[in-house]
């Protein structure tokens, strides 16, 4: 039983019709909705209540300090169709609401978004580092375009007790 991708896309688009957003179709099996952070919760609620797919991933995109904006892409997949909610974030005030009350397993993706891009996800249950090491300095966001990796870190070799 192969589910028709275009039919799923049409259903998804109908579910999100109440929101006003710019719609683009970058690939035949994808629709992108550009939304403001305030619209995120409602959009996810509409998709979950309409039983349209599952959260595939949350991708952070940094357009650079000159552009002054970032995006958080919330990808939802249903069989072969993908709907992406492109949340426009201002670099000076990077905040999005949490969707963990709707999708509990989104906590991992939100933690990654916070630690890698410095986006504040309001109301998220767990704000610990997911991938970054414990001693990582706060305020340093590796995936932002204006951060150059310190290359490489000099580690003093431990003078361990070593005898033949």
């Amino acid at each position, binding site marked *: 039983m192969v589910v028709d991708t275009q039919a799923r896309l049409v259903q998804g688009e109908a579910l999100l019709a109440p929101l006003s957003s710019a719609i683009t179709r970058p690939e035949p099996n994808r629709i992108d909705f550009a939304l403001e952070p305030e619209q995120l919760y409602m959009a996810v609620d509409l998709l979950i209540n309409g039983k349209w797919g599952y959260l595939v991933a949350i991708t952070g995109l940094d357009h650079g300090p000159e552009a002054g904006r970032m995006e958080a892409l919330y990808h939802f997949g249903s069989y072969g169709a993908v709907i992406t909610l492109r949340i426009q974030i201002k670099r000076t005030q990077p905040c999005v609401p949490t969707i963990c009350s709707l999708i509990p397993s989104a906590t991992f993706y939100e933690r990654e978004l916070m630690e890698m891009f410095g986006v504040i996800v309001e109301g998220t249950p767990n704000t610990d580092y997911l991938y*970054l090491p414990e001693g990582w300095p706060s305020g340093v966001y590796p995936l932002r375009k204006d951060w150059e*990796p*310190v*290359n*490489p*870190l000099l*580690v003093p070799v431990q003078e*361990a007790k*070593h005898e033949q």
Partner: protein
Amino acid sequence: MAVQVKENTSPLRAVMDGLKTWARVNSPWLLHFNAGSCNGCDIEILATLTPRYDLERFGIKLEGSPRHADVLVCTGPVTLQARERLIRIYEQMPAPKFVVAVGSCALSGGAFRGCYSVCNGIDQVIPVDAYIPGCPPRPEAIIDGVVKLLSSLQR
């Protein structure tokens, strides 16, 4: 009550040393630790225990606790998160202890050299006695490396 030996040249000391070396060389206990590798080297290390390569015929046993181990077989380019644990495990091992670095990531950071959360190789963190290159090294190469380390102990 331990035997009190006063001089290095005592014949008893020589016998004890010979016995210890014989035990260590003929039946070393290995501890495996993955310091952030992609698992390629780890599954080749695990494959050395399986019937085709069978490391146990050399008397080598894979152990669970650092406190029982003679040889630390380590893979991975040592991520920052794993670094403290690696040092702690190394310190928990009783002396004399040896470290074998397996794979090109463990030698120099491999493909990940220069990445922001990587220490560029195990010898940046703890002293290493044997290096086994490869991405990943074949199980035969791993066995060869461990056997070379053991025969160097005999000398």
